[in-house]
């Protein structure tokens, strides 16, 4: 296949894509309007199930199966990173030297770490009420732990981070999501159908049926996955060195 042929092929595909996009674009609802066919239906469903945050209702109730897929993608990609970034045979671990951090920075890290952990948990717990949810809160919690690396050194972080526990937590959280879905099947409805729990009072922590449970599972999964992922990156950047003279 020569250069000219390839160019023609790209142009053909691009033109087809452009035509499809244009056709789809012409039928879209106008930007910024107050009516939207999907939006109206989603809000109605969310209100019916007493979920104040419509986004959480869409993610963890109407399209909970999609979210299961996304969760598994994150799980699989972290697994891939763990396999790729493992310590190879021609590498060895060098102990990092302790870092010399200015006292105000160290105090700030120690002070903000628990506050950030609390905020992450707050965001996870209020996913069905206010903006946020499992993903956002999980990332905040996991980032908070790494303040220990920034405010002290890698050795300090390793002391509060039993990596095996986080790997197990990651797997456990994904299974918890699936188990919640299977519970609905056992109760006689569809997989992940939100009919198991009472919907509760609108705009309180116990509203939304299974939405808070799925949120908590995703929060734990994301937090553990980010910790494991960052651990592999930190290992590579800080500890693992290639053997010289091979």
């Amino acid at each position: 296949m020569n250069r000219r042929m390839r160019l023609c092929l790209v142009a053909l595909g691009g033109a087809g894509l452009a035509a499809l996009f244009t056709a789809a674009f012409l039928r879209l609802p106008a930007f910024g309007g107050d009516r939207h066919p999907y939006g109206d239906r989603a809000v109605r469903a969310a209100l019916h199930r007493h979920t104040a945050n419509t986004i959480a209702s869409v993610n963890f109730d109407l399209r909970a199966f999609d979210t299961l897929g996304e969760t598994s993608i994150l799980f699989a990609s972290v697994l891939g990173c763990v396999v790729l970034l493992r310590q190879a045979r021609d590498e060895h671990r060098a102990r990092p030297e302790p870092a010399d951090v200015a006292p105000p920075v160290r105090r700030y890290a120690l002070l903000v770490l628990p506050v950030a952990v609390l905020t992450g948990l707050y965001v996870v717990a209020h996913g069905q009420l206010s903006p946020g949810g499992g993903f956002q809160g999980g990332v905040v919690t996991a980032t908070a732990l790494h303040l220990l690396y920034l405010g002290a050194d890698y050795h300090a972080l390793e002391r509060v981070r039993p990596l095996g526990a986080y790997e197990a937590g990651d797997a456990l959280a994904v299974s918890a999501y699936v188990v919640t879905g299977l519970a609905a099947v056992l109760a006689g409805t569809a997989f992940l159908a939100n009919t198991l729990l009472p919907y509760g009072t609108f705009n309180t922590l116990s509203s939304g049926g299974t939405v808070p449970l799925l949120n908590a599972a995703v929060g734990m999964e994301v937090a553990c996955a980010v910790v494991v992922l960052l651990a592999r990156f930190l290992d590579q950047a800080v500890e693992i060195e290639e053997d010289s003279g091979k």
Partner: protein
Amino acid sequence: MNGWLLAAAVVLTGGLGAALWGVATGPLRRRAVAQNLATVLAGSGLLLLAQGYDRPSYLDLALVLALLGPVGTLVFARLLADDLAADPPRARAATWATVGVAAATVAAVCAATGPGRAMGKLLVTGALLIGGNLIASRALSGGFGGVRGG
């Protein structure tokens, strides 16, 4: 468009625009300082937007930014310590001006909210935003001495 949104537009265009110029051009020290200041300005902008749209739950965004923004700057201060130590940033005037903007924003939004738990949340967010920024600028100008491999 009410006064709060207008104020947010001014803060975002003027402040964040200037920070963007600072982060896109110039030596590394100026870029790092501009990144730090962009966090504070965006945090003030988010506070003003939450007030302007009259959505108290939007405050969570400002809270998360106030927590994680300085952490991001600490990441740069830590991992670029060698480059920054050779040419330490000096931007006291710009830092204090930005902190002034943030403090004025928090004070104004607090005054509009009135006393109560919502005001407490605002004050916590403001304290984290300003305190974090000052610590992060301290870290940029030599907070990590002699980090080698650590």
